[in-house]
């Protein structure tokens, strides 16, 4: 398994992006941005279609740019219009998917590519992706750790963060930017449909056992690594699509930690109010 070059690349990328998604996911879930990241990932489909249309053999760049454009548009609409946040996201998500699929169906010979981007494919991870994942993990991971205090305080209370001297608006925009880049890169492995799960499930698994934020962060990074590595390995061994394999490993982790939580008598079900 480890001798094939494409497998080495896929495993390296999984071991880089899995933990990174876990780390960022802690804040994505606490700030209820899961639907936001789903919208960004689905916008990537429009980017992929545009990329193929313009003749790119590797659509990473157009995919990232279109996702970024949609993310900025989403923030702008949220700040400047009376539209409800959910409406904005649903509009952009379904609009991008419809646009992407229509363009790809008009282009001859890209039908097969669609599956690969919807569900992820270890074969599609090229050397450029490995280099990009390395740089992004180093830069984004470093940025998140450096700004951990500020991000945690913004998550707890934005006004309090502002009064404490934190540049809230700039950090919020920066967070959206890095989230977009990480999502766009992770699409190679997980696919458009499932990429958000790597942001949501590892932190949820960690939270089952964590008593504080430090434990949740460490746990989410570990769960992301296990999910990424285990999923890619399972995909190779059993010839399964890569994205769903990663998700199933993550779900198994979640259920295991949930059982451990029940053992510790911190119930998962909320107590009934009489």
């Amino acid at each position, binding site marked *: 398994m480890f001798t094939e070059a494409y497998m080495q690349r896929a495993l390296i990328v999984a071991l880089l992006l899995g933990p990174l998604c876990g780390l960022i996911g802690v804040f994505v879930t606490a700030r209820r941005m899961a639907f936001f990241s789903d919208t960004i990932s689905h916008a990537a489909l429009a980017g992929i279609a545009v990329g193929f249309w313009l003749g790119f053999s590797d659509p990473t760049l157009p995919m990232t740019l279109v996702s970024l454009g949609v993310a900025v548009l989403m923030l702008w609409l949220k700040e400047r219009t009376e539209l409800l946040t959910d409406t904005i996201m649903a509009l952009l998500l379904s609009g991008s998917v419809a646009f992407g699929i229509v363009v790809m169906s008009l282009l001859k010979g890209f039908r097969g590519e669609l599956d690969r981007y919807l569900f992820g494919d270890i074969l599609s991870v090229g050397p450029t992706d490995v280099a990009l994942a390395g740089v992004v993990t180093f830069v984004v991971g470093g940025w998140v750790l450096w700004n951990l205090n500020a991000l945690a305080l913004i998550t707890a209370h934005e*006004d309090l963060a*502002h009064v404490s001297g934190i540049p809230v608006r700039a950090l919020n925009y920066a967070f959206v930017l890095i989230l977009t880049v990480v999502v766009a890169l992770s699409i190679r492995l997980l696919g458009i449909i499932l990429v958000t799960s790597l942001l949501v499930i590892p932190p949820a698994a960690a*939270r089952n056992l964590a008593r504080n*934020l430090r434990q949740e962060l460490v746990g989410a990074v570990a769960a992301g690594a296990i999910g990424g590595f285990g999923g890619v390995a399972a995909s190779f061994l059993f010839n399964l699509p890569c994205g769903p394999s990663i998700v199933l490993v993550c779900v198994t982790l979640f259920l295991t930690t949930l059982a451990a939580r029940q053992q510790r008598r911190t119930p998962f079900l909320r107590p009934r109010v009489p």
Partner: protein
Amino acid sequence: MAEIRFHRAGLAVEVRGLHLRLGDTAVLRGVDLHVPRGAIVALIGPNGSGKTTLLRCLLGLEKPDSGEIRLLGEPVGPKVLQRVAYVPQRLQLDRNFVLSVREFLCLRLKSARRWMWQGHRQTDDLLRAALADVGIEALFDRPLAGLSGGQLQRVLIAFSLLTGPELLLLDEPTAGVDNPGERSFYELITAIHQRLKLTVVLVSHDLSMVYRHATRVYALNGVVCCEGTPEEVMNADSLRQAYGIHVTPYHHDHPPGHHHVH
């Protein structure tokens, strides 16, 4: 010269001619406020009277259309806000965010940037002392999201006092806290005020607590309707001005000084 005369020494908060529209509503219509250093000032008024908006202007969270604000003699900005602390109504904490009390307090300390990696003895001692000051040392390792409203308010007070502020701004700090909890909270604020000699400005709905604990009261309704000591402001005429025409302070069989608006 006029400028120099205006910026009187000894004022913790100085507001002149503040106007602010939010959407179609003129929320603040020429508010003037002068809070002497060391006072406990209460901002009272009906819903929508601009109390919280005024506080948000003081904190730089809203930008007024016109008017001037000075805190501790300086215009509102990051520099002066380092000497100001703010206690919001409540945290918008998601139940899923497992920030502990200790971690939350660390966020206030620049020196505790590495809280992720190690429990620092000196920092922990400082944080435990801060919690002991507000009577909740036992909550040190508890997750913030599981605390009651009253406990959370005390954590927020401890958080705000960590940097040794000169001015403490509280926005309806006892909203969602039960009655005994509310009383002990105000007693805590008074004790802190006396011990640390800081200036306190609080927005409040509860006139009885204001009557008992504030040294000066501003009744607000878009403009400052009346100002003075609690005894001066809390009479029928002043309250009528602020709250509307059918309002009288009504004395029940409560402890002395307990007022309701009916």
